[in-house]
């Protein structure tokens, strides 16, 4: 390894070493990066190098080994959930066991949000995974210790996302004329996701309380129908 570069890297990391968590990476068993969150300012090149090195080291470890790894002057806490590795870099002084709990909490949040999450959910909805992480951690520290509050915040923020296409949907007027209960019934049975979303938005605008009573299946359909 190029020595000056490495020194530089170490320097950057140690200057900001008062952070609780330096970065978090999610990667697959094949070594594909699925999510990266950096709480320290590093150049793209450095980030790539660290990622490559860590992915290799972690993947080389046997399943029965402990979840901690000393790497440079940091401690790596990682845990595998199905095909995904969740990997956090913390400082030497930090509590490794509670970091494992933080990882676990994030997994639980993903699981609740996506409904038994799998790697594909995170690939196709990576931005959601980021939104959830940002609602849970801020600057490398946990900001909310209640699962419910995090999910509530995410779901309400999701509702604020406007779908530009929806308002022109032909079903718009049709839905408008019905009452709230009917809307709820018809969206539950409908297969057409964009239509469901339209109905849902209208429902929310007319009768805010109703959204909670909608069944989970439907909520999921709506999430998948983000405007991206």
């Amino acid at each position, binding site marked *: 390894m190029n020595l000056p570069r490495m020194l530089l890297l170490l320097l950057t990391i140690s200057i*900001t070493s*008062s*952070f*609780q968590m330096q970065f978090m990476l999610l990667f697959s068993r094949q070594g594909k*990066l*699925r*999510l*990266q969150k*950096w*709480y320290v*300012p*590093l*150049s793209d090149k450095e980030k*790539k190098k660290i990622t490559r090195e860590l992915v290799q080291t972690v993947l080389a470890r*046997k399943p*029965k*080994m*402990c*979840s*901690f*790894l*000393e790497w440079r002057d940091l401690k790596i806490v990682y845990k595998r959930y199905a095909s995904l590795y969740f990997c956090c870099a913390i400082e030497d002084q930090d*509590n*490794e*066991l*509670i970091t*494992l*709990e*933080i990882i676990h*909490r994030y997994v639980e949040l993903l699981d609740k949000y996506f409904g038994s999450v799998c790697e594909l959910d995170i*690939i*196709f909805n*990576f*931005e959601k995974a*980021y*939104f959830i992480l*940002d*609602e849970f951690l*801020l*600057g490398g*520290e*946990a*900001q*909310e*210790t*209640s*699962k*419910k*509050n995090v999910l509530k*915040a995410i779901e*309400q*923020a999701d509702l*604020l*996302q*406007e779908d*530009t296409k929806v308002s022109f949907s032909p079903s718009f007027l049709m839905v408008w004329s019905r009452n709230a209960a009917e809307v709820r019934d018809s969206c539950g049975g409908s297969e057409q996701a964009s239509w469901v979303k339209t109905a849902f938005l209208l429902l929310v605008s007319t009768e805010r309380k109703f959204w909670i009573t909608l069944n989970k299946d439907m909520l999921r359909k709506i999430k998948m129908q*983000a*405007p*991206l």
Partner: protein
Amino acid sequence: MPAPIRLRELIRTIRTARTQAEEREMIQKECAAIRSSFREEDNTYRCRNVAKLLYMHMLGYPAHFGQLECLKLIASQKFTDKRIGYLGAMLLLDERQDVHLLMTNCIKNDLNHSTQYVQGLALCTLGCMGSSEMCRDLAGEVEKLLKTSNSYLRKKAALCAVHVIRKVPELMEMFLPATKNLLSEKNHGVLHTSVVLLTEMCERSPDMLAHFRKLVPQLVRILKNLIMSGYSPEHDVSGISDPFLQVRILRLLRILGKGDDDSSEAMNDILAQVATNTETSKNVGNAILYETVLTIMDIKSESGLRVLAINILGRFLLNNDKNIRYVALTSLLKTVQTDHNAVQRHRSTIVDCLKDLDVSIKRRAMELSFALVNGNNIRGMMKELLYFLDSCDPEFKADCASGVFLAAEKYAPSKRWHIDTIMRVLTTAGSYVRDDSVPNLIQLITNSVEMHAYTVQRLYKALLDDISQQPLVQVASWCIGEYGDLLISGQCEEEEPIQVTEDEVLDVLEGLLVSNLSSPVTRGYSLTAIMKLSTRFSSVNRIKKVVSIYGSSIDVELQQRAVEYNALFKKYDHMRPALLERMPIMEKTASNGPTEIVQTNGEAEPSVVEPKHPPPVGQPASQGNDLLDLLGGNDVPVIPTTMPTKPASAGGELLDLLGDLSLGLSLMAFYLFDLFKTVNFLSIGIPPMTAYNKNGLKIDFTFERANPNPNVAVITIHASNSTEADMTDFVFQAAVPKTFQLQLLSPSSNVVPALNQGTVTQVIRVLNQQKQPLRMRIKLTYIHKGSAVQDLAEVNNFPSQSWQ
């Protein structure tokens, strides 16, 4: 223009790519489309395009051209745009690009937005990537939000404040008023983040620490409520109420209680309660216990509590979960200094962890094992550690070897054990040990006189087995050179002696010279060893032949040695025995300590002695010391010996040799010194002698042949005084038999200063036409402590070279 493909579709398409090249092609095509869309300032699909770009960025493709687009998204009115814009900014921008400052104003507006989720996005971005400039500009807004009643914003603002303080510590005081009511909050999110904020402030400033000490009772109360209160579904993690908050409070208590008796006293009870009441079947419980143990160890806690803490760690050591065992080893390592005996009780469990398959655990166990070694358990512990050294991965060997060296040096029960241990390390992990272990071991061996025969025999046997471990081979060569006679005589008492002939020994050493496995340094050792054997063995002719062969070696270093040794055979044969005498016992120097740069033999190049010009000609005094300085000045560990160095004028010959010596040499220190011994003697030619040593007055003679007339011996006397009082009116007189002529030059002074603080020198020239053995009678008169002293002495032990 048709609508760009959707994000999910793009992901799906990219995932169908079979090869890297195919994927790259797809991405390039899409990037081109995105760029042109950006150029057209398309507002409808900007959000979608940036999202796609973020996906490609995660796959490792460049996405920097999306940076400005993120800023445009942030400035948009739509929530979707803002959400993706801020996400993109956090992923694509950081404080090292000036572009990020363009966001400052947008963030400021959004911090005052009417929707809390927009405010939340702005806070999150600021807390994740805000640079110090940005933090200065926005700290006021953060402080305002820290005082709101909205807990969603308040918790985010608290962590933002932590970030601001980290970036710009002098802004800390600004947040002080807002911290007042933070701990009375009910919401756990706000409580948790407030504790983080308080921790940050206390860690940064002693003033804040003193100020916040008064919060201890309040923190204790919160913690108590957490562990005493019943089940609360919202914050429960496998039966434990809000472990995240508990851990955070325990950490803050640790900082507040450190070095403060009153605060420590106030938290003793609650720590005991947490330590005994926490459910340990799950990881969460252990996380809390672990934090509690750390706090107990750090504050001024009662001794009973400390024992409790160590016992918790002892239980951790026996846990089935590897993570818990790892944590136990780490924290025992932290406490081993303060609670040595308590940790010692868990020794066998710790040693067992050396056999773990997991490198993380192994490393911790190794460090801890070394910390636990003491005079009582050294034999047992070393057995385990040497076994570990045998079987461990290469990455551990260097650390383990130096650990064994240190421990052996500190607690060795006997010299023989010490030598055996080091030799064992050299045979098992020879190529991983640090460079200075060779001179260290040589020194150790030299100093244990009674072990010489045993050592040389062991090393000879080791050499027969394996000549690939260079440090071992070097030590062995050196010892065979020094103690070859003992090896041949077979007088080993410690072990059954082996019978070897001179030729067998020389065969082995010559084998080293030609072996491909030998490094240049090893060859040097080996050649010198062979040379030394010329005075210990009878087969001088064979040795002469070997030496002359290497006179034309391509290795400059080896060649030089061989040429010098050749000269010793030819021109200076009469002084060869004296030159190749056994090395005297060496003194231990501090420079061999563990603080030196760790270099392993495998990769390190021999330290290069920088060419340094020899001291200018015509500086008669302390040539020998200058030579040592020359070595020391180049940061090579020097091993000074008690060997007398001649402070006499060495003349041009020495300087020439020295010039050569210092020019092309890349040598290890010891090797250099070894050679240097030769150089020193060769050039000066005649060893010095002590002529008189009585009542604290010591007179040394050094010799020099006057160049034009070989019959004239120039003797310099050096008088030194080791008593506390000066000797005044010092007069040195000398008389010789009639066959000699003597000329006494004037002395440098007539006062010999006390406590060896200086010497009086005087030059005597003796003309010895008939080359008869030199004899001399000396008369000394001086005044010491007020009384006159007179003494006579006869000197007839002059070295033969001084008159031959």
